[in-house]
C-alpha cells in the first residue's frame, strides 16, 4: 500500500515538474526569428599575408638595383622615365626603408605557378605608374600612389586565392543575372518531367563562347522527349544572345571551361 502511494506520488511529482517547466512557454509568443542571411566565408590568410608574383619580384629587384644606382623610384622602369625630371629628384629616406621592408617579405618561390606568371606579366606593365612619377614631383601624391599599388597587389593575390575554388557568390550572381534575362523559357514544356539541360562551354578570356556542347545530347532523339530538344535549343539561344558572358576579369584558367545547368521546372511549376 505504502509502496503504491510512493510510486503514485513520485509520478505525480514528475508530471507537476514537467508541467511547471513547459507550461510557461505556452504563454510566451513564438520567437520572431529574423530572416537568414547567407554569408560568404572567404579565406583571408593569403590576403593579409600578401605574396609577390615571381616575375614581379625579379623586376622589382632589377628596378631596385637601378634605383640604387640612379636614385629613382623603384617602380619607374628606366626606359620610360624621362631623365630631366625623375632623375633629378632623389627619393626620400623613408621610401627606401619601405622598399627594404618589402624586400624582406619575399614570397616562397615554391608557390610559383603558371597563372601567377601570367599575372606577373600584367603587373610588369603596371610597374610604370604615372601616379608614382607624379609623387616624385609632388610628395603629397606619394602616399596615394602607394595605396593604389597596395590595393592592386591585394587584388592580385585574391585572384590567386580563388583559383582553387569556384566562382565567388557575386561572380556567380552576375553571370546568372545576365543569363536569366536572355533565357526565354518555352512555356509549353511539361513541368512534371525532367527539365534539366546541361551545357558545357569553352570560353575566351572576354567571355565569348568558343564551343558549346549539350551533355545529354542523346535525350534529344529519344521517343517522348521532344520537349527536351525545344528546351535545349532555348538554352543555346540564351547563351548566344548573352555572349560575351559576364565572367570575372581574372582567373581565366579557372572558368575557361564552364558548365551551365538550365532547369526550367521551378519557373514552370510556379
Amino acid at each position, binding site marked *: 500500500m505504502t509502496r503504491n502511494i510512493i510510486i503514485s506520488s513520485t509520478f505525480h511529482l514528475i508530471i507537476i515538474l514537467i508541467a511547471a517547466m513547459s507550461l510557461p512557454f505556452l504563454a510566451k509568443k513564438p520567437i520572431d526569428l529574423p530572416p537568414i542571411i547567407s554569408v560568404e566565408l572567404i579565406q583571408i590568410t593569403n590576403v593579409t599575408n600578401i605574396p609577390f608574383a615571381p616575375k614581379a619580384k625579379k623586376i622589382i629587384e632589377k628596378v631596385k638595383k637601378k634605383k640604387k644606382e640612379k636614385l629613382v623610384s623603384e617602380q619607374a622602369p628606366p626606359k620610360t622615365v624621362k631623365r630631366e625630371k625623375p632623375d633629378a629628384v632623389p627619393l626620400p629616406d623613408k621610401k627606401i626603408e619601405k622598399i627594404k621592408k618589402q624586400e624582406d617579405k619575399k614570397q616562397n618561390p615554391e608557390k610559383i605557378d603558371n597563372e601567377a606568371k601570367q599575372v606577373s606579366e600584367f603587373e610588369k606593365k603596371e610597374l610604370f605608374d604615372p601616379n608614382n612619377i607624379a609623387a616624385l614631383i609632388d610628395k603629397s601624391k606619394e602616399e596615394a600612389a602607394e595605396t593604389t599599388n597596395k590595393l592592386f597587389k591585394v587584388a592580385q593575390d585574391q585572384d590567386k586565392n580563388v583559383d582553387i575554388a569556384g566562382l565567388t557568390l557575386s561572380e556567380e550572381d552576375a553571370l546568372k543575372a545576365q543569363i536569366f534575362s536572355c533565357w*526565354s523559357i518555352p512555356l509549353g514544356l511539361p513541368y512534371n518531367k525532367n527539365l534539366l539541360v546541361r551545357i558545357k562551354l569553352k570560353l575566351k578570356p572576354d567571355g565569348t563562347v568558343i564551343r558549346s556542347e549539350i551533355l545529354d545530347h542523346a535525350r534529344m532523339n529519344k521517343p517522348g522527349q521532344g520537349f527536351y530538344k525545344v528546351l535545349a*535549343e532555348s538554352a543555346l539561344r540564351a547563351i548566344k544572345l548573352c555572349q560575351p558572358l559576364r565572367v570575372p576579369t581574372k582567373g581565366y584558367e579557372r572558368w575557361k571551361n564552364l*558548365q551551365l545547368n538550365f532547369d526550367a521546372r521551378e519557373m514552370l511549376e510556379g
Partner: protein
Amino acid sequence: MLFRYLLILMLLLPIKAFGLIEVDITRGNLSPLPIAVTPLSIDDKSKKSFEKILKKKDIAAEISTVIENNLKQSGLFNPLNKDAFLQKSDIAHLKPRFEDWALIKAQALITGKVTFVDEKIRVEFRLWDVLAGKEMMALAFTTVSSNWRRVGHIITDKVYERLTGEKGYFDTRIIYVAEEGPKTNRIKKLAIMDQDGFNTKYLTLGNELVLTPRFNPTNQMVTYLSYFRNLPRVYLLDIETGIQEVVGDFPGMTFAPRFSPDGRKIIMSFAMDGNSDIYTMDLENRIVERITNHPSIDTSPSYSPNNKYICFNSDRSGYQQIYVMKSDGSNVKRISFGKGIYGTPVWSPRGDLIAFTKMHKGKFYIGVMRTNGSGERLLTENFYQEAPSWSPNGRVLIFYRETKTDEKGEGFSAKLWSIDLTGYNERLVETETDASDPSWSSLLSN
C-alpha cells in the same frame, strides 16, 4: 622503356587541374519570343490566279497575317514590325542573312512561298533559328484554294509546337450559342467558327432555345441541349451531314451533356422529381448507365482525359461544390473547399487541372485547381462570366462574359473571351453576334 620515360616525364610536368565550375540557371524570362514573320513570297502569275479565284489581292500576305495574328494572340510570341525588316522575303526564304534578323532582335524567323499549282494552293514555309543560324523546320502544304486560312493555322500550329514544346490550338473550331434580341425574347442559335472568329456558320435556325453545345474530342459530332417542343433534351448533331437525334429515351429533362475523351459515350444529368443524377449513354449500343445516386443535385459532369475519373458539381454538402469520383461512380471525394460556390468543372486535356466557375460575394471567377483540389488559382473575375472550355492543348480557356452595355446598368451584351493559364493574356474573341456557352474542338489536322 619508352612508357617509363613518358611516365616520368608526365610526373615532372607541372600539372594544374581545375574543377569544372557549374552554374545553375533556374530562372528565365517569360516574355513573348520575338519572331519575324515575313510576308510569304509569290510570283505574279500565281498572284493573279488567286486574285481571280479568291478575290484576294495578295493571298501570300494574307496568309502571313493569319500566322502573325495567331502567334500574337497566343501571348507567347511577339511578331516584329514588318517595317523594320532589312531583307526581302523572297531572298530570305532561300538564305536569310541572320545578322540582319538578329539586328532587329528576332530570335526566330518564318519565311515562305505561295504558288498556284493545278487549281490548288501550295504553301511552303521555313522556320529559322536566327541566333543559331540554322533551319528548324521546312514543310509544304497543298490544298484547295479556299482552304488558305486553314493553311495559315496549320503553319502556326507547327511553329508553335516547334518553339514551345506543346501542340498548338490554332487549326481548331469553336461551337457556341449565338444570341440576338432583347434578354426577355432572346433568339439562340448554334454557331460554329474558326478559333480566330472567321468562317462563322449557323447550325440551327433559332426556333428552339439551345444551350451547352459540346464537341466530340475525336470527330465533328456535337452534343447540346435543345428545348424542342419545350421539352429540354440532349441532342446529337453531325456537323458534316447536319443529321441530329435525341440522346436516350429519358422520361424527364436531360441536360449538361459532354462526350467522354474517347468519344464513345455521352455523360449528362437527368432530372426527375426534383432530383438530378449523372448518367452515361454508350453511343454504340445505346446502353444507359446511372453513375450517381444521391438525393442532391449532381450535374456538370466531365471526364478525365484517361476516362478513369469524372468531376462534377453537387450540393450534397449544402452548397454547390466540385467533386471527383471514379468513372463507375465510386469513391466520391469533394475537392473544392474555398469560400463561395463552385460550378461547371472541366477536366483539362492534359489531365493536370480542373477549370471551374466560382461565385463569391456577387462576383464570378474563372479559375483552375489541381485534380485533388489543391493550388486553386483564380484567373479572371467579373460581374458575370461562366462556362470555361479548354483549348485542345490545355493552355487556354474560352468562356463567356456578360457585361452591361450602358452606365445605368441597362442592357447587356454577352461575348466570348479567352484567357491563358498565366492569367495575363485575356482577349476578346470576335463573334458576329452576342455569344455564350463556347466549346473548343480538338485539332482538325490530327
